[in-house]
C-alpha cells in the first residue's frame, strides 16, 4: 500500500510537470467536437440528433490518443524495466498509473462534457446523463486502451497502431454510452443502460490491470 501511494504520488507529479499532457486531450476533445458543426451542418435539430454520437466518439478518440504515450517514456527511460524487476507485483504501479492518468485526463473530459453537450444543442435534461455516462465510460476506455498501450510499448509506432488494436474493443462502451445519451435526449429512462455501462466498467477494472501488467511483461521480452 505504501508502494501504491508512492507510485500514485509520482505519477501525479510526472503528469503535473508536463501540463500539456493534461490539457491536450481536453483541447482535442473540444476541437473534434467543434469540427462537426463545420463539417456536417450547423442546423440545431440535426446537431441534436448526432450530438450523443459525436460527443462519445470525440471522448473515445481523446482518451485513446492520450494513452499513446502512457508507457512510452517510462520504457525509453528504463523506468519500465525497473518496475518489472522490482519486488512488487507490477499491478500495483500499473494501477497507480491508470488512476493518475484518468484523474488528470479523463475526469476533466467528464467535467467539461455538459458544456459541449449544450453547444451541440442537447436538451438540458440530457446533460446529466452525458456526464454520468462519461464518468462510467472513460475509466473503462482508459483501462482497455492501456492494454493496447502496454502491448505496443517499445514498438514506437505512434498512436495509429494503438487505434487499430483498441478501437474494436471500445465499441461496446461506445454503444451503451452514446445509447444512454440518446435515450436521455429522447426522454427515456436511462437507468438500465447506465447499469450496463457500470457492469462493463466493473469487468474492465477487475481484469484490465492484470492484462496491462501481462502486456508490459510480454513487451519487455517475456
Amino acid at each position: 500500500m505504501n508502494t501504491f501511494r508512492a507510485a500514485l504520488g509520482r505519477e501525479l507529479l510526472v503528469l503535473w510537470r508536463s501540463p500539456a499532457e493534461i490539457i491536450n486531450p481536453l483541447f482535442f476533445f473540444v476541437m473534434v467536437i467543434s469540427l462537426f458543426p463545420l463539417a456536417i451542418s450547423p442546423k440545431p435539430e440535426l446537431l441534436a440528433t448526432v450530438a450523443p454520437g459525436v460527443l462519445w466518439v470525440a471522448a473515445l478518440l481523446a482518451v485513446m490518443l492520450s494513452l499513446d504515450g502512457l508507457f512510452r517514456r517510462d520504457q525509453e527511460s528504463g523506468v519500465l524495466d525497473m518496475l518489472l524487476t522490482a519486488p512488487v507485483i507490477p499491478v500495483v504501479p500499473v494501477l497507480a498509473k491508470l488512476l493518475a492518468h484518468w484523474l488528470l485526463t479523463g475526469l476533466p473530459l467528464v467535467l467539461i462534457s455538459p458544456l459541449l453537450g449544450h453547444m451541440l444543442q442537447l436538451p438540458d435534461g440530457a446533460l446529466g446523463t452525458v456526464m454520468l455516462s462519461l464518468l462510467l465510460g472513460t475509466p473503462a476506455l482508459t483501462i482497455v486502451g492501456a492494454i493496447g498501450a502496454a502491448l505496443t510499448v517499445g514498438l514506437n509506432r505512434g498512436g495509429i497502431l494503438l487505434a487499430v488494436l483498441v478501437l474494436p474493443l471500445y465499441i461496446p462502451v461506445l454503444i451503451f454510452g452514446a445509447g444512454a445519451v440518446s435515450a436521455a435526449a429522447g426522454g427515456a429512462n436511462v437507468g438500465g443502460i447506465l447499469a450496463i455501462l457500470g457492469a462493463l466498467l466493473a469487468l474492465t477494472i477487475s481484469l484490465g490491470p492484470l492484462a496491462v501488467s501481462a502486456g508490459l511483461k510480454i513487451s519487455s521480452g517475456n
Partner: protein
Amino acid sequence: MLGSPRYFYTFSSRVLPWLTPIALLTLAAGLVWGLAFAPADYQQGNSYRIIFIHVPASSGALMGYMALGVSGLVAVVWRMKMAEVMLKSIAPFGAALAAISLVTGALWGKPTWGTYWQWDARMTSMLILLFMYVGVIALQAVIRDPRQAARAAGLLAMVGVINVVIVKYSVEWVQTLHQGSTLKMFGESTIDPAMKYPLLLSMLGLWLLYAVNVLLRARTEVLWRERRSKWVSKRVKEGEH
C-alpha cells in the same frame, strides 16, 4: 503431447493426407449440390444460392476467432510453444473468411435489400470481427521476435474474445433500440431441407478446409522455428516432407 512441435509435425503428417481430400470433397459436394441442384427460392430466385458460401464463411470466421482466443490463453498462461504457432496460423484464414462473409453478404444485399450495405447487427459485428482479426495480425507483424509477437497477439485475442461476445450483444441492442425488425435475415425455420443439407455439407467442408489450412501453416512455422533442432535437420537430410 500435441504441445510438442515435433510430435505435432509427425501427427499432422499422418492426418493431412486423408483430411485434405475429405475437406475438399465435402466442400465440393456441398457447393455443387447447393449451387447446381438445390431448388430455387420462391422469393429470391437463384440469388439466394450465395448462402452456400456466405453462411459457412461467416460461421468459420466466428469459430476461428474463438480458436484464436483459446490459443491465446494457452500461450500466455502456459507458455506452450504450439499455441504460439497456432496464433500465427489461425488468423489469416479467419480474416479471409470474415472478408468473404462481408463481400458475399454485400453482394446478396443488393438483390434482396436494394443496397450493398446496411448497418444491420450481424453485418456490423462481422465488420468488427474483421477489425479484430486485423489487430491480431498487425500486432504480430510489427513485433520482431516471433515468440514475443505470438504472446502479445495471444493476450489481445483473449481480450478480443470477451469483446466479441459483448459486441454481438450490444450491436443487437442498438439495432432494436434504433429500428424495428425491418431487416431480418430469414430464420432457419424457413429453410427447406433441400437447401439445408447442402448448406450443412458445405459448412462442414469449409471448416475442414480451415483446419487443413491451419495445419499446413503451422507445419511451416514449426519447421522454421525448429530448423536448427536435430529432428528437423534429419528430416531435411533424408529428404522427407
